[in-house]
Structure formats: structure tokens, C-alpha cells
């Protein structure tokens, strides 16, 4: 971007009234703007006011949008200074504003004396004072401090920096984001097999992240390649958009999947989820990703039969990309920093979608406060799934009893209160539950009330859970004295997934939960 002290390049631009304009030999204020930028809409009325107070001042608006949109805006805001069209961004490229609105104040000799990015009342007043001084006019306050508008407001990316065609990537798209270093290039000589070489990034074969493939992935995102999305624990490596894209290529993701991968990386590095602990524990825990909303159909996530299997490119490659990012950027490679005792097959990839079409109740994301039409992803630090087979039960409560028996053994059979679980209900089971009048809440309450550990188990001898016995709540379940397994019904999460044939549900226990462990997080996908 051109700075104060530099010479302003001349131009010849057509205004919306058809007249042609170039730089005049007098103090001039140029403002680059877009018609759909809220900060531009906030700024332009102040410049209108400036034009009214200083009718002799040469103020020019330079629109980066087409004539129709620009004319509509000029009419709406009653813009009283000339509005020029820079639709091919030739002038924008010369002045190179990183964001809009950007103001350039030029003296009578065509030298830039002041620049201002986005909306800032103090800057606007300083620029007004400078313009007044150059014109020999009395200084006045253009932007009052308490006029109802904020003191500052960030702008939007300048149009000329947005991605246009494939292979032509903007250098900087969000001027306010944290920037990281660009990835280095690995140059392989002709005798090196790229696929073999890439086995150092993962024990399974990956698609080599060539320049062209990574660029295609980057073009699918509106973010700058060097924008830091998160620092990935436990090594706190910088997950820039470019590094994420390189790993997404290796996982075989379709470029559209960047839409999900970016919020997924933000979510997995959310302090509440505590991926640091999830990656460093010797426990089984592996991230379980649950996708909800219209994105399931838009990008081909499978929610039906084989939902936990290698059933669809979207499910498998998203899960694999997440794992590659956690190891290659975060550093928790199994066998190195990740010293899990037995590990988890979910560390290959573990992404399921909720079968909302077979769910008679509200889906997970709606329960978490999102609109049904909002796509989301939810993360849970999960033990491997254990199956609950129940083909002969005639009633919903019998199915729930079977599930409660599996819930009773999560983590280990004598520990209570401290763990959570996801119950994955298959369509056939949920159908029976609904027929018998269960709502999602009443099914959850039933599981909470009926999941307990018989007291006689505590005479098996010392063991995990026995030391906390004094904290547990004693209840009677089916005439038997038990400790309640869960502290609250909300520790039991319910999702519907799987194929419409077969009466197999599943239960997944948690790792350490709450603020001292890992908390379930749900992020919107835009």
C-alpha cells in the first residue's frame, strides 16, 4: 500500500455520471470503497458532510464494484462528490489498499500526505484538519465523539486482493488476522518417488502435497495462506491456512472440505476441548467429530449405514486430515508424544454425521442452540464405541435398559459421576422409543435414572472408583441398591446415526470431562 511521502500515481477513470477524471493539481482526498462493506457505508456519510462543509475540496470516491451497484449506493447515500469506477481494480492495484475504506490525502503536488485504513474518528478528524490547513480553511470537527457511531470499525478486504481465478491467490485477505510464516518448499529430485517420500508424514500412503494441489485447496478458502487459524497443542505448531491445506491434500480431501476443516481446527484447539490433554493422555481418547445440518448433503457426509466405517470420502478424508494436522503440526505422533497405552482405531479417522432424517427428535446441534438449517460440527473426546445389540425387545424401555447396562461400564465399572457418554441410537431403536412415547429428554432421563452400579460390586476388593465411594449417590434401581453412574442427565448425549436395517446402537465413553478435562464443543460451519 502506498504510504505518506510517496507520489500518488495519476489515473483516468470514468465517473458514474459519465465524466472522466484524473488527478488535479490541488489538495485531493481519495477514498477507495466497496458497495457492500458496512464500514464503507459508515464512512461515506462523513465524507459527504466534509464535501458539504468544504465545497471547494477535491474529494473523489473510487468504487471497486460495478456501475449498477455503485450508482445504487451513491443514490442511497446521496453522495455529493464524484464517484469513479475502478471495476478492473487497475487503480486499486497501484494504490494497493489492504482494506476498504482506505483514504489517501494528497497535497497539490500529487504527494501523499496522509493515509487511513478502515473507520477511525480520530484519524478522520486529523485528515480533515490537514485538508483544512492545506486549503486555508478553518479547522472543524468532522466526526463527533458521541454521534452514535463507534470510534473505530475494521474494514473489509480490498476487492483487488480477493481470489479471482484459479492460480491467482490474494496475498492478504484479512488484514486483522494473525500472520504466520509461509511453508517451506521441499524440492524432490527426479529419482525420488514422491509417494514414498511422503511416508515420513504418516505411516499410511498420502497424496503428495504438490504446489498445484495445495493451491487448489487454498483457492477453495477465502482466507490468506499465512493466516494462523490456531496453535495446535502439544507442540503449539502454527496451523496456517497453507499448512492445513497441505495436510488436507495429503488426506485426499476435496477442496470444498476446507469449509469444514477451518472451523474444525479452530474447534479442536478451543481451550475447552483441551486437545493438549486428549493427545497426551495414555487413555484411549480420540476426537469424535459429529457433523449436523445441510452441509451433510452439500458435501456428501454419510450418516446412515456404516457411519463409523470408511464409507464416504467426506467422512474419511475430513477425519484423516484432522489426524494428519494433529500429528504433523501439533506433534502428537503415536509412539512419540502420543503414548496412549492401547490407542484407538478412531485415530485413523472418526467423523460421523447425524442421521437427522431418521431422528424424530431434535438433532444434536439444535439441542446446542443452533438453528436446524445451520451446519455445525461437534467434538467429543471419545473411548472406542461399544456396541449395544438388542433385537428382541418389544418396548422402548427394554432397549434403554440394554443401553444403560453398557453405560454403566464406561471408563470402568465402579467409577461414577466423573465421565460423560455419547449414545448413538440406530434408526430402528429410536423408532421404537418414539412409538412408545419417549422424547429425547425423557429417554435421557430414563438412562440417567436407570444407570447404576450395584453396591455389591464394591465388595470385589480395592480398585478404581472404590476410593470415591463416599461421594456417590445411593439409589434403588429395580429393587437393588446402586450408586448412580452419572452426576447429571446432561452427561448423556444422544445422537441418531446408522442404517435403517439392524438394531445395533452404540455407546462411547469419555475421557476426563468438565473444566479439568475435555468439554464437548460445537462450532458453526459457514
Amino acid at each position, binding site marked *: 500500500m502506498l504510504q505518506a511521502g510517496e507520489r500518488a500515481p495519476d489515473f483516468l477513470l470514468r465517473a458514474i455520471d459519465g465524466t472522466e477524471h484524473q488527478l488535479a493539481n490541488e489538495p485531493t482526498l481519495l477514498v477507495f470503497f466497496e458497495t457492500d462493506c458496512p464500514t464503507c457505508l459508515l464512512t461515506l456519510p462523513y465524507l459527504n458532510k466534509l464535501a458539504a462543509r468544504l465545497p471547494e475540496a477535491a474529494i473523489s470516491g473510487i468504487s471497486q464494484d460495478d456501475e449498477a451497484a455503485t450508482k445504487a449506493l451513491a443514490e442511497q447515500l446521496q453522495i455529493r462528490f464524484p464517484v469513479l469506477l475502478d471495476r478492473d481494480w487497475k487503480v486499486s492495484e497501484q494504490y494497493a489498499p489492504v482494506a476498504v475504506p482506505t483514504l489517501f490525502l494528497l497535497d497539490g503536488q500529487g504527494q501523499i500526505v496522509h493515509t487511513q485504513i478502515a473507520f477511525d474518528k480520530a484519524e478522520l478528524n486529523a485528515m480533515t484538519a490537514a485538508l483544512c490547513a492545506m486549503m486555508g480553511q478553518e479547522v472543524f470537527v468532522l466526526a463527533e465523539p458521541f454521534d452514535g457511531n463507534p470510534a473505530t470499525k475494521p474494514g473489509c478486504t480490498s476487492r483487488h486482493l480477493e481470489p479471482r481465478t484459479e492460480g491467482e491467490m490474494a496475498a492478504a485477505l484479512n488484514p486483522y488476522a494473525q500472520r504466520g510464516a509461509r*511453508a517451506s*518448499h521441499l524440492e524432490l529430485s527426479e529419482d525420488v518417488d514422491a509417494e514414498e517420500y511422503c511416508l515420513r*508424514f504418516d505411516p499410511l500412503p498420502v497424496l503428495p*502435497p*504438490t504446489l498445484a494441489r495445495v493451491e487448489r485447496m487454498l483457492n477453495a478458502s477465502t482466507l490468506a495462506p499465512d493466516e494462523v487459524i490456531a496453535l495446535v497443542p502439544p507442540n*503449539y505448531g502454527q496451523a496456517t491456512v497453507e499448512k492445513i491445506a*497441505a495436510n488436507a491434500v495429503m488426506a485426499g480431501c476435496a477442496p470444498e472440505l476446507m469449509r469444514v476443516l477451518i472451523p474444525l481446527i479452530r474447534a479442536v484447539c478451543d481451550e475447552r476441548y483441551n486437545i*493438549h490433554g486428549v493427545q497426551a493422555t495414555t487413555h484411549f481418547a480420540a476426537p469424535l467429530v459429529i457433523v449436523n445440518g445441510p452441509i451433510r448433503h452439500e458435501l456428501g457426509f454419510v450418516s446412515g449405514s456404516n457411519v463409523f466405517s470408511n464409507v464416504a470420502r467426506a467422512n474419511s478424508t475430513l477425519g484423516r486430515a484432522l489426524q494428519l494436522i494433529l500429528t504433523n*503440526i501439533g506433534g502428537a505422533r503415536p509412539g512419540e508424544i502420543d503414548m496412549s497405552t492401547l490407542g484407538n482405531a478412531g485415530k485413523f479417522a472418526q467423523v460421523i454425521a447425524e442421521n437427522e432424517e431418521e431422528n424424530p427428535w431434535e438433532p444434536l446441534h439444535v439441542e446446542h442452540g443452533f438453528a436446524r438449517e445451520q451446519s455445525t460440527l461437534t467434538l467429543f473426546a471419545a473411548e472406542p464405541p461399544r456396541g449395544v445389540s438388542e433385537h428382541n425387545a418389544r418396548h422402548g424401555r427394554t432397549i434403554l435398559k440394554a443401553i444403560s447396562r453398557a453405560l454403566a461400564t464406561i471408563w470402568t465399572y465402579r467409577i461414577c459421576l466423573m465421565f460423560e457418554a455419547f449414545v448413538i441410537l440406530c434408526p430402528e431403536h429410536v423408532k421404537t422409543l418414539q412409538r412408545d412415547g419417549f422424547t429425547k429428554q425423557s429417554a435421557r432421563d430414563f438412562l440417567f435414572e436407570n444407570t447404576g452400579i450395584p453396591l455389591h460390586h464394591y465388595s470385589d476388593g480395592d480398585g478404581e472408583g472404590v476410593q470415591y465411594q463416599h461421594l456417590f449417590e445411593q439409589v434403588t434401581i429395580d429393587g437393588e441398591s446402586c450408586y448412580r453412574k452419572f452426576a447429571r442427565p446432561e452427561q448423556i448425549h444422544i445422537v441418531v446415526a446408522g442404517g435403517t436395517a439392524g438394531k445395533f446402537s452404540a455407546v462411547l465413553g469419555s475421557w476426563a470431562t468438565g473444566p*479439568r478435562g475435555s468439554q464437548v464443543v460445537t462450532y458453526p460451519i459457514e
Partner: protein
Amino acid sequence: MPTILINPLNESQREPRKAATKLSTLQGKTIGLLDISKPGGNYFLDHVERLLKAQYGVANVIRAMKPTFTKPAPAAVIEQLVNARCDAVIEALAD
């Protein structure tokens, strides 16, 4: 033509750290014991504290505790051990 790949690995530079100098004796020293707050950590560290004092002549034992074993020690816990001018700190796992 050579193939060019985008490096998918973390390239953030980290400052190399030198390991602390090993103590030649524990006699008269101040030793910090950091409990990572796993179950049973207090039993283990109580025993270590007794051994350090009775058998090795350790002058002071400073006990600190992480709020949770699942996350790195917060700055306040590390500061507590630094401010106590420990000659060495032993971090205790348990279970």
C-alpha cells in the same frame, strides 16, 4: 522436472533450552515437589518428602499442585516454585 512439495510439518522455531545443572548433593537444599493432581499423588509425594529429609538431608521441601493433570501447569504454579528458590523440582506422576 523436480517435484516441489509444500512442507506439511510444523516449522515454528523453538528456543533450545539447556537442561538444569545436576545437583552434586541434596544436603541443605530446597526441593520443590510438584503434584500433577492425579489420584494418589499426595501419598507418593508425602513418602518422597520423608525420604528427602530423613535420608538425604534436604533442608526444605516446597509442595505445589497443578489444578488438573490434563493441562500444562499454569504460570502461577510455576511462579510459586520459582519464588520459593528451589534448587531442584521433582514433578510427580501418579495413578
